[in-house]
């Protein structure tokens, strides 16, 4: 397996990235850590004319945080975010989800924004972005816009990013007082893609559950604070509303059952973590 031919450009400035994307559009691919793009190139599922390497731009390699949000630049590797000492305190859901992303040997190179850009339906970071009301910062030349995770993920490996736009960063709200979070995932082997993954964010009066691996993109549902049979009924309705698929790993019925059981367990764990 060898990639088809492409030009390679190591960008020294953001303007250079924007100019290349404006010139090549869909024929250009932005290369960050390369942990999902490289297999796609080697299997020739992607055949760009130009690869733009953005890993030598210091302005993209920053994690910035204020009282409200954490902003993670496009050059920040997953292992760097996981090793950030403030992560667990500022956003515990990210700290619980990140160890499920690939393996230590791929997190050392793969970026947070790269995983968001790839938008695999079973990937952990898009799921966490959706559960946490994260947003994606896109830029094309001087034009900038911010898209919520809800609007960004549009289907199987497809997003609202325009062909000339660069994902410069993602922003994730800091944990709010009085809320609890939890993350759980079921797969056959460590490091496999999730058959189902769940992320819960709860407060005294409401529950958000987001699930990945079930349909062609991560999905979320917001409930009032329910318990017992009422919560089971709400999870059952959510499971049936998802467009669950059969594949060689699991049937749609099995995935729905995982949403009901793991969904409930995840919500209960998040309630125990309210602080």
């Amino acid at each position: 397996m060898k990639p088809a031919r492409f030009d390679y450009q190591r960008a020294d400035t953001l303007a250079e990235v924007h100019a290349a994307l404006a010139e090549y559009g869909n024929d250009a691919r932005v290369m960050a850590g390369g942990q999902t793009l490289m297999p796609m190139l080697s299997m020739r599922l992607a055949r760009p004319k130009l690869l733009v390497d953005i890993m030598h731009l210091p302005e993209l390699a920053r994690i910035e945080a204020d009282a409200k949000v954490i902003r993670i630049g496009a050059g920040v590797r997953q292992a760097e975010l996981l090793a950030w000492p403030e992560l667990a305190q500022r956003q515990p859901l990210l700290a619980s989800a990140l160890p499920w992303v690939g393996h230590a040997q791929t997190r050392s190179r793969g970026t947070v924004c790269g995983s968001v850009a790839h938008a695999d339906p079973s990937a952990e970071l898009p799921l966490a972005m959706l559960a946490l009301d994260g947003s994606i910062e896109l830029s094309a030349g001087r034009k900038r816009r911010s898209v919520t995770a809800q609007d960004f993920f549009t289907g199987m490996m497809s997003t609202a990013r325009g062909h000339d736009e660069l994902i410069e960063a993602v922003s994730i709200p800091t944990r709010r007082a009085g809320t609890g979070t939890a993350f759980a995932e079921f797969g056959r082997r460590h490091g496999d893609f999730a058959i189902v993954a769940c992320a819960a964010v709860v407060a005294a009066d409401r529950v958000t559950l987001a699930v990945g691996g079930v349909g062609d993109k991560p999905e979320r549902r917001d409930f009032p604070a329910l318990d017992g049979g009422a919560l089971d009924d709400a999870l059952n309705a959510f499971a049936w509303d998802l467009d669950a698929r059969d594949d060689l790993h699991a049937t749609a019925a099995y995935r729905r059952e995982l949403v009901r059981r793991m969904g409930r367990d995840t919500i209960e764990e998040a309630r125990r973590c309210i602080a």
Partner: protein
Amino acid sequence: MHRLSADRRHRVRFTLNGKPVEADAEPRMLLTDFLRHELGQTGTHVGCEHGVCGACTIEIDGVPARACLTLAVQADGATIRTVEGLAPEPGRLSVLQDAFRRHHALQCGFCTAGILMSLDGYLRRHSAPTEAELREFLGGHLCRCTGYTPILAAALDAAKTLREVPAHA
């Protein structure tokens, strides 16, 4: 701006196991092939070529990396370590390599170079790993011969030796 054209070969230079090396590569050439075919360093093995098996794991700028998920041109200017750099001198194994030999932590040896490179860096950063931590970390490698038990034993043994005589690394 440095745009490297698809149909030409371009000079790639980096530091490999402490020495400067250089050779030519098309932009699409994988670092695995560059190491093996252009530099003749065949210690790095090529298994799945899509990042799953871990056989090609090397160290790039101090962190473990799949050489098959890296382009040779991306590595220009980097500091790279491969399995050829582990032995402290010809005829002498590193502490980790020696533990692998004593514990029979390899049979066919195909996965071994990648696992050694992963563990070498890990044991430098974590001097007292638990078995659970090592199991989690080794999850990034496939071995079809050993069942992993002797690999774990070798890693724990090497960690202990390195704590006692760190100079032997």
